[in-house]
């Protein structure tokens, strides 16, 4: 075989099938985010173009089909070509089948071992297993003086114990305009990278109260500050300086038999208004440093299962 024919054979014919295949893949990925029907349509496009592509490739490279192509160039296929073809066909029979069967069977067995192991390693982080949802009882409302913040430290999960010890800054706002009780409950973790935010102001240790394992220490903060990277917040948790990208996370609450009970943990973009008149949008709890509103939220499009 001369170099020239070799080159001609190696050069793949230009084809539109790979482009259609790529469009199908893109459609699946976009569809996964936006809607299932789009993903199914993408899968259909991918399969159709994939089949066409494979068929096209097979036709171009198949030894049986390429022989007539050479015949057109050379007149008759050379002896070397015929010999190569014979050899090819001969080895492809039993040996080829056994090779493919070994690889295939090995692949199936390997996948049978690897896939469950990988799933076991990765999936439990996302299924929300072991997250205790029993509400945290913070004690009688009378422990929370009206109009001032208290540093409240509590155990988030009885199963996890001290590791789940959390702090929230709670202010009793008195009654709202609708005569409902109102509390501002700010989670202590900085929404920059998760360090513990401190209230900037005097703590009144001698007025501290305890209820079961909950400790309640009055404090008079002029905003909150993070010691790690200088994030600063006002008394509503809105960022005033430093790297944080949103306002401090909050907790919902309920009142059961005169006790303040901690509700869902949620993230907020910004808080408008103050105290009982504060208005904000609740977002599912997000990692620190993650935007929940504005144009940057599109950087984090997928909801986190189990978070």
């Amino acid at each position, binding site marked *: 075989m001369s170099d020239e024919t070799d080159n001609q054979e190696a050069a793949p014919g230009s084809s539109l099938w790979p482009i259609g295949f790529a469009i199908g893949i893109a459609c699946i990925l976009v569809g996964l985010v936006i809607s299932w029907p789009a993903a199914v349509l993408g899968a259909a496009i991918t399969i159709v173009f994939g089949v066409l592509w494979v068929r096209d490739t097979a036709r171009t490279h198949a030894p049986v089909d390429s022989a007539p192509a050479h015949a057109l160039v050379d007149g008759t296929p050379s002896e070397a070509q015929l010999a190569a073809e014979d050899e090819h066909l001969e080895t492809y029979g039993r040996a080829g089948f056994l090779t493919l069967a070994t690889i295939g069977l090995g692949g199936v067995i390997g996948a049978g071992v690897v896939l469950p192991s990988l799933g076991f390693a*990765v999936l*439990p*982080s*996302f299924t*929300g*297993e*072991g*997250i205790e949802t029993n509400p945290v009882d913070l004690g009688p409302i009378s422990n929370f003086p009206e109009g001032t913040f208290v540093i409240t430290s509590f155990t*988030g*999960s009885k199963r*996890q*114990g*001290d*590791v*789940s010890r959390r702090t929230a800054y709670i202010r009793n706002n008195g009654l709202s305009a609708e005569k409902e009780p109102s509390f501002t409950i700010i989670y202590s973790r900085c929404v920059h*990278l*998760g*360090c*513990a935010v401190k209230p900037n102001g005097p703590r009144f240790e001698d007025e501290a109260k305890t209820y079961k394992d909950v400790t309640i220490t009055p404090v008079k903060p002029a905003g909150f500050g993070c010691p*790690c990277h200088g994030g600063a917040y006002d008394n509503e948790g809105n960022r005033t300086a430093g790297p944080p990208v949103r306002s401090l996370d909050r907790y919902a609450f309920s009142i059961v038999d005169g006790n303040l009970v901690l509700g869902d943990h949620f993230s907020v973009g910004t808080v408008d208004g103050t105290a009982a008149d504060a208005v904000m949008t609740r977002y599912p*709890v*997000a*990692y*620190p*440093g*993650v935007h929940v509103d504005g144009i940057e939220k599109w*950087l*984090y*499009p*997928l909801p*986190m299962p*189990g*978070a």
Partner: protein
Amino acid sequence: MPKSARQAQIEKAALYPVDWVEERSGLVGYTKWFLFRNVPRDINWMQTLGAATLTAFLVQATTGVFLAMYYKPDPDSAYASIENITNEVALGWLVRGMHKWGASLFIILMFLHMARTFLFGAYKYPREINRITGVLLLVMGMAEGFTGYLLPWDQTAYWATVVGININATAPIAGPFIAQFLQGGAQIGPDTLAKFYSLHMLVIPGGIMALIGLHMYLVIRLGVTSPPWSSTAAGRPRGEAEPKGYGDYREGLIREHKEEKDEAS
């Protein structure tokens, strides 16, 4: 000096087990190929940094294996077990100190070694795969540092890991998922410590060992690079079938390789 009959007899007796192993496994030949090889005449002390890095890793592996006998990866007992290793167990302070300070040494040596290969041009043809595996080793070494930092389970460990995981979370799209995987749930807890322990002593070291094997195989196959100021060529001679368009390679990377020549002739 000619050997006496007695000397020859002793030599034969001494070599007999070596020959026995070689005949059945070929391992002696491989070991010789591995250890006794030509290096460029003007080789530099800087070229020992790779071996130094390997030594630092072996120190980490050895001390780590024995620390694992006394460490307990559980939030209630992790810190106490570290205190026990440091203050109670015989020589525990020494082995833990070797592991703790050796970790920094390992990272520093990796960077120095990387700087040497960069400045010597040792990342160029035909050593690209060495560079790639080296960069992966650097990343995995730093992952070892990150996962190992949590294990003492003190305030520094906890908050450094909180910040580290949350930095991961800020990556677009995949970030929150990486963070969620690392801490094994929505919050850092007992699962996080056990997971980091497993990653630190099983998963990542396994990967590092495999990559070191490939890295070293390539070093031995391709030979040591001459320093840039060298007058002698180094590296293996090119094969007959060179890829087209690569004809203008740097001469200095090619070193006459004795064994190769012998095989060819």
